[in-house]
């Protein structure tokens, strides 16, 4: 089992998973704090649709041209989502976000129906192709993520405040719209490139599962981030090991591992609260 990790392609897939895990569980921290879960799968789907457009136009996969076509649709989706946030509360914003998701998925289906091997491309759009990731793609991706990471490091105070206390920031006179734009633009840059490598489902899982597991156990910002990274890295390692051990695709194996971790964490959390519950119960009874 361990010896399989001596194969360069396994090491490369693991490295790619770790690079993705690093930036996504950080961005996911913000996404989950802001409660915009469905927005990110919609934006990821728009990026995937952009990849399909590039494919149909005959652009080379993983080329810069394909990346920018995809990025265009990512930004288009972000604009649609932010503009559709009406003052009118009778129409929930979630409805528009859902339509963006369904719309881009359908558009990809329609485009690929006329494309040879469409079914296989759809599958790759969802599940990615971590096992065949190329060294140069991984290097450019890592550079891009590092740049976005640095950008977020410089503006960390603003981004964390906005995720934690949006109402307070508005009260202090912040131009929230502009900060949101910066956040979603950098988010779009990352997701566009990661969807091309890892597929929509893995990107979504990396964004949401590790921060949620962290939230189960702690509210502290630093600890949440650390637990998120730990979970994302452990999920990557377990997923690649399962993929190689059982000879199944890598992306879905990582997703399955992450979700297994989530279920396990929820069980542990409940198990822990079992011990706490009698005490709480007893206190209440005493008061009565």
């Amino acid at each position, binding site marked *: 089992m361990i010896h*399989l990790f001596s*194969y*360069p*392609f*396994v090491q*490369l897939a693991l490295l790619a998973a770790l690079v993705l895990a690093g930036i996504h569980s950080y961005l996911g921290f913000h996404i989950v704090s802001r409660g915009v879960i469905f927005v990110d799968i919609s934006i990821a789907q728009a990026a995937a649709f952009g990849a399909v457009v590039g494919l*149909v136009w*005959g652009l080379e996969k993983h080329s810069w041209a394909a990346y920018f076509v995809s990025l265009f649709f990512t930004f288009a989706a972000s604009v649609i989502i932010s503009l559709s946030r009406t003052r009118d509360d009778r129409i929930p914003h979630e409805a528009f976000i859902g339509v963006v998701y369904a719309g881009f998925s359908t558009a990809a289906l329609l485009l690929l*129906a*006329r*494309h*040879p*091997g*469409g*079914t*296989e491309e759809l*599958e790759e759009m969802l599940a990615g*192709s971590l*096992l*065949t990731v*190329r060294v140069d793609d991984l290097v450019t991706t890592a550079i891009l993520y590092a740049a976005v990471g640095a950008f977020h490091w410089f503006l960390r105070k603003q981004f964390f405040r906005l995720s934690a206390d949006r109402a307070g920031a508005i009260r202090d006179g912040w131009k929230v719209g502009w900060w949101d734009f910066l956040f979603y633009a950098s988010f779009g840059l990352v997701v566009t490139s990661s969807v091309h490598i890892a597929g929509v489902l893995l990107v979504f899982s990396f964004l949401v599962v590790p921060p949620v597991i962290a939230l189960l156990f702690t509210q502290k910002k630093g600890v949440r981030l650390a637990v998120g990274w730990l979970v994302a890295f452990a999920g990557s390692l377990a997923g690649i090991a399962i*993929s*190689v051990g059982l*000879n*199944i*695709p*890598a992306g879905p194996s990582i997703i399955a591992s992450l979700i297994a971790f989530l279920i396990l964490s929820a069980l542990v959390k409940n198990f822990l609260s079992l011990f706490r519950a009698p005490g709480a119960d007893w206190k209440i009874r005493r008061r009565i």
Partner: protein
Amino acid sequence: MKRFLVFVLTLFAIVAMSSAAVVNVVASSSDLKAIADYIGGNHVSVKAIVTGKDNPHFVEVLPSYMVMVSRANIYFKLGLGLDFWAQPIIDGSRNDRLVIVDCSEGIDVLGKPAGPVNASMGDVHPEGNPHYQLDPANGLVIARNIEKGLAQVDPGNAGSYEAALKQFETELGSKIETWKKEAEPLAGMEIVTYHESWAYFCRAFGIKVAGFIEPKPGIEPTASHTAELITLMKARGIKIIGKEPYYSDRAPRAIAAATGAKVVDLPPSVGGAEGADNYFSLFEVLISRLMSAARNEP
């Protein structure tokens, strides 16, 4: 004690030598594997990436493929753009000593598009129709390419490979004669096939392909094309729809119901149907299935 050690070491050496003597071969398809097994005999251990039941046009890359190729001495490619998926597998395996042989070398390629190719034409292979293994005469071309490759990586056994090639040539030659005689009633018959994989087979046995269930190669059946096909089949009285095992039989069955034709499962590769377990029995299965369909047997 010393003697025992020498004995153990010799044993190890023998085991190491005998396992080193086996040439590890990976082939893109089960057909190439079948022929490589014939030529290589017990000097080779051959593994195929696509089995006879899988669609060779697209392959989901699994870890085991990379592991297989990283241990291989030689890789037999189908070529003509069909196994484009082999390249990321070969790259990912990082096997520097791997010898890659394109088995389509020397094939008289059919269906080479005259102009430039784009995606709107469907999955047209710019280098021509890659389903060449279905003309049994091409089996010999494949066998020659394989023999040359094996002799290159394992010159010690070159003589044995050459002998096997000669035997393959004789056996195939006499079988082709038998098959052509057997399939004589099929000559001139018109059939419809799912994908454009039967050009070589039909040329070899004089069968005419009147149309395809796919509107364009690799594109799923559409309503308008299906309607046209039904009209065409009724007008010409076409009674046989050939389908590869890895395509859905929904459209073929619907068309068969509308035209009174019969859907015949045609394995395009070794292992694609019961009994088609080597290159020769593949053609026996194909001919017997088409013959019984033509005689309108159940």
